[in-house]
């Protein structure tokens, strides 16, 4: 180490090494600050628009339009809102946080109430036939009421209660049971068996929670 030049070289090498390690760390940290997001939709999503908004800086809040459904996009980790809209669809917003793992968000678009009512007018007869086939008591002893379609018209929920005269209804409080049917392959099928006072997502995890919550409400 008597040669000052050798010492200077070694010091320079050390500093370079430190800078190199630091640079590698920051480059790796930058690369891993991005995460993959895939947006998918259930059912028909033609003529719809999906927008993506970031939370945070003005730049992040700018909308990313024309997100390609089903293809992963790389974004900075953080909070985002996905908005789904289109003619005949309710505006749907979903929040997602991009963290350490890639995220796939599946949006379940909903038709507007008006559109669902028009579809129900056409489907009601077939739905009631199926209910009467699968729950024979509804042919004469029980009444089907408050039937509604949900989502894109593939879910039907209704309440059934014992048929009574107005006088009997005034004197006897009776249980109101709930049922949900699903249309698959052009056929309506009763999903909730047997009819129950409260339908639970624990027992029926495949039924959208919002459908269960609405069907469980009291008759209007």
């Amino acid at each position, binding site marked *: *180490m*008597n040669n000052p030049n050798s*010492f200077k070289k*070694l*010091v320079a090498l*050390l*500093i370079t*090494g*430190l800078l190199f*390690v*630091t640079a*590698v*760390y920051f480059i*790796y*940290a930058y690369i*891993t600050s991005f995460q993959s997001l895939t947006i998918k939709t259930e059912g028909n999503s033609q003529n719809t628009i999906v927008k993506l908004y970031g939370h945070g800086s003005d730049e992040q809040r700018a909308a990313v339009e024309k997100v390609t459904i089903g293809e992963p996009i790389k974004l900075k980790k953080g909070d985002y809102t996905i908005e789904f809209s289109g003619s005949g669809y309710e505006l749907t917003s979903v929040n997602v946080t991009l*963290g*350490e*793992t890639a995220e796939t968000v599946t949006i379940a678009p909903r038709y507007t109430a008006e559109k669902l009512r028009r579809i129900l007018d056409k489907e009601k007869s077939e739905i009631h036939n199926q209910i009467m086939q699968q*729950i024979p*008591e509804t042919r004469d002893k029980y009444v089907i009421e408050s039937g509604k379609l949900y989502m894109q018209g593939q879910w039907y929920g209704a309440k059934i209660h014992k048929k009574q005269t107005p006088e009997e209804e005034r004197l006897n*409080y*009776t*249980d*109101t*049971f709930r049922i949900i049917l699903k249309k698959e392959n052009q056929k309506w099928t009763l999903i909730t*068996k*047997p*009819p*129950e*006072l*409260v*339908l*639970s*997502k*624990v*027992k029926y995890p495949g039924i959208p*929670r919002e459908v*269960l*919550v609405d069907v*469980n409400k*009291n008759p209007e």
Partner: protein
Amino acid sequence: MDYEEKRSVQRKSLMLAGGIILLLIVSVTAWTTLQRRGKIPIEIRKLPHDTKITVNGAVARGSTIYLKPGKYVVKGEYEGFEPYSRKIDVTPESEIPIKLFFALTPKSDEARKWVMEHTDEYLDFELVAGEAHNEKSQEVRDKYPIMKELPYRGDLYNIEYFLDGDKFKVQVKSPTALGRQVAIERIKSWGYEPADYEIEFLGLDNPFVVPERKADNE
């Protein structure tokens, strides 16, 4: 080499050594930090202390291991003791650190003798494990917050709960339709959505469940 030169060489050697050590520390710290990104810390306490811990068959060393989110089987083994396995589900939402306790049961005479000689350690272990169990119970209460309202006695109904492992259900006891409906409204008034829970209505004779259909449903 005179005294001043020697001092100068010594200083330079020290600076060089210090620089190399610093570089090593920075490198190791950066590498460790990057390796642990996205992983959840799992603290492992074990008796005997030399218990071999494996995670999905691979040996894991140290009292804290770091795992990516996923399902794992963590096993503790030591000669003379019964092996013990735990299945864990590591998620980004897991309460960190996850704590695992392995107090192996002796099966050989030698192992029993060892346990007798280390009774104090086993007692301390049980104390710490007990605290962890209380934390776990709090986790269950956090998962099913309606538990804090129950049991509840109304005029026409009672609302209780049933918990067996991971199976949780709310039980409404009422002989009348009005009582059952009022109980559901009571649950909603607490801010809970009935659809989020499995609710069993005791005292309800469901007219849509007939004996042959009951057999089908079971």
